[in-house]
């Protein structure tokens, strides 16, 4: 059985927190650059140019791309033959968040209680999702989520009779209502199926997929393309000032569901949609 020490996990999480917040992923970076040439609005082009310049500067100086360095969402994939030693896995992850946010000069945006609202001052606790898989791998994705876009995300339990059209209408309605708030151009994660919470988790995982990667299922790929076109036809544009680039990508992830239900979650990611991953 492979042993993984908690100190290694803390070190990795620390590094990934800083990396995710300061280094815009290559796929989004190059997509923003391409959109500068396809955007129809002159003001929109300027906004996109500013976003590229901002990302370039953040990379160079290791500054946070955006001041909202998010609530730290951590996806852990652990092989069932891997063994974590030296303490609690959860504590190790939170210690990595604590160190990363301090050393990286990242903003501490977490309050201990959603009603009392006192800041924890170290951005902990993280929101941690575990997947147990065969083998002995240990993989972590750190995806700090900003709340400008998180606040504009929605979930709806549709009726099966509403079908694909109902799903499409809900996605478009969610993006339209979000308008300028989630910092367009956005990335749209759509989770369809499962139960209420499963669809929400699928939609968040969908945001981690590369913006230039089409769905491996051709039917879903076609739906993604149609949704992207409809979203860009809304005219919201870069920063919401009007334009033809409202979203960079739509990703759909599905799961089997109940005979009585059609859960749909739409998780909106901003043009930063921070994520960084590593193995141990």
């Amino acid at each position, binding site marked *: 059985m492979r042993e993984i020490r908690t100190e290694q996990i803390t070190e990795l999480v620390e590094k990934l927190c800083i990396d995710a917040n300061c280094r815009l992923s290559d796929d989004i970076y190059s997509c923003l650059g391409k959109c500068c040439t396809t955007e129809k*609005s002159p003001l929109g082009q300027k906004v996109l140019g500013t976003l590229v310049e901002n990302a370039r500067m*953040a990379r160079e100086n290791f500054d946070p791309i955006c001041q*909202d360095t998010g609530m730290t969402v951590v996806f852990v994939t652990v092989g069932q033959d891997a063994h974590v030693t030296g303490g609690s896995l959860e504590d190790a992850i939170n210690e990595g968040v604590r160190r990363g946010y301090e050393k990286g000069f990242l903003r*501490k945006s977490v309050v201990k209680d959603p009603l009392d609202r006192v800041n924890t001052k170290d951005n902990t606790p993280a929101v941690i999702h575990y997947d147990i898989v065969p083998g002995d791998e240990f993989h972590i994705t750190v995806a700090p989520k900003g709340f*400008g876009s998180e606040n504009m995300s929605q979930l709806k339990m549709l009726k099966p009779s509403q079908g694909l059209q109902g799903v499409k209408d809900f996605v478009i309605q969610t993006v339209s209502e979000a*308008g*300028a708030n989630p910092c367009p151009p956005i990335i749209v994660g759509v989770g369809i199926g499962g139960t209420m919470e499963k669809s929400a988790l699928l939609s968040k995982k969908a945001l981690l997929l590369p913006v230039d990667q089409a769905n491996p299922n051709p039917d879903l790929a076609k739906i993604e393309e149609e949704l992207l076109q409809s979203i860009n036809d809304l*005219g919201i544009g870069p920063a*919401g000032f*009007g334009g033809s680039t409202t979203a960079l990508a739509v990703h759909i992830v599905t799961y089997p569901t109940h005979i009585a239900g059609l859960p749909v979650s739409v998780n909106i990611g901003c043009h930063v949609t921070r994520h960084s991953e590593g193995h141990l």
Partner: protein
Amino acid sequence: MEENIQLTTPLSEETIKKLKAGDMVYISGVVYTARDAAHKRMCELLDQGEPMPFDFTGAAIYYAGPCPAKPGRSIGSVGPTTSGRMDLYAPRLMKEGLKVMIGKGLRNQEVIDAIVSTNGVYFAAIGGAAALMGQSVQSAEIVAFEDLGTEAVRRLVMENLPVIVAIDSQGRNIYDEGRKVYQQSL
């Protein structure tokens, strides 16, 4: 739409009247950061008849909570947060003399009405371009509510913060107008 308008706070009534939705402006001078928690506290102070943490006459508020400053710098990345969360408080603060708001996203009708009735202006900064905007900050000091961390009220001296007039003193707004121009259907 005008480009390259250079303004220094506090803005005069005349200056505000001339600004039109869509104008590109570079703001210099003093702006105060305040977001959710600071707004709640300021309105509680007003309820209790207590003095405000800074002079509101002609003041500019930037809806922002910065990242910590690296050594040798005055502030970290600092871009706008979603203004709509402050809609509940803004009309009341405008009655106290607040003239200029800087943030991102559309405001509700009450705020638009207050902007028109008090001859105010709402600027939009580009959400997410925070590393660049941090470069516009010449100095930063906490003036109230230090316990709130990033949500404390800070007095920033800006140099050429790039913004767009999002809602002008006539109540016109770039979000609705810009979107209509590029909307293809629906």
